[in-house]
């Protein structure tokens, strides 16, 4: 009993409650006519789709820059890479890899500038980051219209220029990761092996990076910048590196998301994406100052599970469509809860 209680304290009551709520939803699902195997398949798919966004938050949390509310900048870099890849007519694995490679220079430049800015506003990073993200998205709303893209799959048919709000990647690199070694059981259950493997690879690289000399220095900067400086570490440099890595992962994240979702979403789409990622890592037990790979995996799974199950079960039960409302309430509610309550990290 005592060990159980200790485990509960370590794991954190919020996570336990959410876990049992999720289990309850799975039990309730058949009663209101929602298929469990299809739901499970959804949960795994969304886990793979979103894991990179959540992973992208880790370096900045570790370096003391807080939660990356400006992850939209990385997403914009990813959108640029994806659209360029389509513009160049790259297909299949080459198209997917091309998108990743083409987005990297943008992510590095955006991240570097963004990092410079955050170094000037120490202590206020999260507020500033949110506005940087919003401003970046709005600026790109103009640019998507003006940039000289010409691929017919992407531009408005009637005007002859300017990018559409949603661009299908069906002819390019849809499900390139999902279909790799995919496991199908029955007509409804699909396990996106490639996508999950890719996420696991990313998490392993991050785990390794945090154990290198630079990763150690970055964590020390987040833990106590004065200590780090006295040990000869350049605090600003470490923080900038963490922002660049976060932005790069954000760019990769949106491309993974697109191959699974099937569409490149432009204009206002990146606006709210950082919030779901932040809600996930906070559910996972991370604090504003510390995050681990376990936080990322547990958090993404619980949060995406909740986002998949709550709307479908509630909709079927109430016979109305409230999915979007429920999603917004759940994700923002969790951010508020976590930011006000969170004092220490859960294991």
């Amino acid at each position, binding site marked *: 009993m005592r060990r159980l209680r200790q485990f509960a304290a370590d794991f954190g009551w919020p996570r336990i409650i959410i876990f049992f709520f999720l289990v309850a939803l799975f039990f309730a699902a058949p009663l209101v006519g929602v298929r469990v195997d299809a739901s499970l398949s959804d949960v795994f798919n969304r886990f793979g789709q979103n894991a990179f966004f959540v992973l992208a938050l880790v370096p900045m949390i570790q370096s003391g820059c807080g939660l990356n509310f400006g992850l939209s900048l990385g997403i914009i870099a990813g959108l640029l890479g994806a659209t360029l890849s389509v513009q160049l007519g790259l297909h299949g694995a080459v198209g997917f890899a091309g998108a990743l490679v083409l987005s990297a220079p943008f992510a590095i430049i955006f991240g570097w500038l963004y990092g410079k800015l955050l170094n000037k506003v120490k202590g206020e990073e999260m507020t500033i980051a949110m506005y940087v993200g919003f401003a970046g998205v709005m600026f790109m709303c103009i640019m998507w219209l003006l940039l000289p893209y010409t691929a017919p799959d992407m531009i408005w048919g009637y005007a002859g220029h300017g990018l559409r709000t949603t661009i299908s990647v069906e002819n390019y690199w849809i499900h390139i990761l999902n279909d790799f070694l995919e496991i199908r059981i029955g007509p409804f259950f699909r396990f996106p092996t490639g996508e999950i493997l890719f996420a696991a690879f990313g998490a392993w690289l991050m785990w390794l990076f945090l154990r290198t*000399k630079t990763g150690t220095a970055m*964590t020390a900067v987040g833990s106590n910048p*004065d*200590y780090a400086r006295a*040990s000869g570490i350049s605090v600003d440099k470490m923080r900038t590196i963490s922002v660049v890595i976060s932005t790069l992962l954000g760019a990769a994240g949106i491309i993974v998301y697109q191959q699974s979702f099937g569409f490149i979403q432009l204009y206002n789409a990146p606006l709210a994406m950082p919030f779901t990622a932040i809600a996930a890592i906070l559910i996972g037990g991370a604090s504003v100052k510390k995050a681990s790979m376990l936080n990322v995996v547990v958090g993404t799974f619980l949060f995406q599970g909740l986002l998949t199950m709550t709307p479908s079960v509630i909709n079927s039960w109430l016979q109305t469509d409230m999915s979007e409302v429920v999603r917004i309430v759940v994700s923002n509610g969790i951010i508020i809860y976590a930011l006000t309550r969170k004092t220490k990290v859960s294991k």
Partner: protein
Amino acid sequence: MDEAVPLLSLRGISKDFYGNVVISDVSFDLKRGEIIGLVGENGAGKTTLMRILFGMNVIRDTGGYRGQICIDGQEVRFQSPFDALDAGIGMAHQEFSLIPGFSTTENIVLNRESMRATPLNDVFGERMSILDRADMRKRAAATIAKLGVSLDPDTLVSEMPVGHKQFTEIAREINRERTRILVLDEPTAVLTETEAEVLIQALRNLAASGIAIIFISHRLHEVIDVADRVVVLRDGVIVKDTPVAGVTVRDIASWMVGRQVAADRVGEGPRSFQEDLLEVTRLWVDMPGETVKDMSFTVKRGEIFGIGGLAGQGKLGIPNGIMGLFPAGGQVRLDGRPVPLNQPRQALQRGMAFVSEDRRGVGLLLEESLEWNIAFTAMQIQDKYLRRVLGGLFRVRDEAAMRALTEGYIDLLAIKCTSPAQKAMELSGGNQQKICLAKSFAIAPELLFVSEPTRGIDIGAKRLVLDALHKYNRDQGMTIIMVSSELEELRAICDRVAIVDEGRITGILPPTAELAEFGLLMTGERVSRTRP
């Protein structure tokens, strides 16, 4: 009123902060028109005593005080500084509390301005009165005249020299009609010698008009100049309360620093050293509150060099400046080669290490394990405790080596902890200090700076820390520069002790020199023989 009853009388005042006694059974009297000089080292309890007298909230929040304060023979117990003001106690602080954008007059009569009624008063009441500037100016001028200084009533505070700010602050206190007791905390610290003389004359004028003054200062000759009586506090106890007549600066200095316990110096004679290791020439350091103005000194290879002095005089600025933590200039040469300033990494790579006085702020990663705390600097500077993985593609932390290192130091320095993975914040102050030492030992420096190594730790831990330094110096030949406010520990382990005052070194003494000589150097009194 009966002249025999003292104006202010303190009876058996005691105060502890969570069991740490800072004032113990302090009693003295203050008569009308008398000036008392209150002296003592940093931490002797002067400030706490004045806070009690002034009814500061911090005293009540930490459990109040014991003993009695009587004014005119009546016991008073102030609930807030306002009560103290009403009872006629004025206080001029070391840091000025003046409004920079207001003129002298406005500052002096602040919140007691002269008012003139207007027709609006009939409708809206007193709040609609307007300032009677002519009368305010007259009152300010009268106060300034009472003080006997020349001060323009119309200058803005922001445009005044510091000396005038100090006068303005005092003028504001005596402008209150009821002020009968004036407390001055280090009023001359920021003044030039001539300004100080003017102030002292002003204080005499005030005393002659019946105001009693408590004058706190480190400048002992001024105390002798101005005070009728001198009260010496040491470790929270009054060690001397005597009329000033016949007392010399040297007497006061030795009362201030003298300890009952003699320094238990390790039984060995003076050592001699040949080679110069560190040469510092015209060093300045811009460290807030610890400014170094112009310092030159040389440290020999293998010695323990002590730097002492009162707080705020610049002794802490020396290691912080040389190690690149605060903006610094001048020349520092290690082994004859110049050390670039303002670059902590360079200083560390050249074989210098620093145990900071700010243990929790700079010295430790409180939320990380002891392994991290001890190995981090060595890992970052010397690439130790790393191992290659994936065929040399990455170098990651060698957790096993870090653990072995930490366990070694836990044994060596007798660090009390549950395991090397324990968080640094969970250790006691003394054990945290040992972690800081271990961190510096781990990079095997040629020259080690230790700053306030025994601050805030108990006696047993102090002994262990000092022994560890002594051992590393003797066994490994590590040169150590130790900065400390505690003269006794400097005298106990150092080969030479430099004393710092106002950003400059006033003298270097052997540890066996008389206590009074250290005291004189600390208070900036020039003595004829500064070098043995």
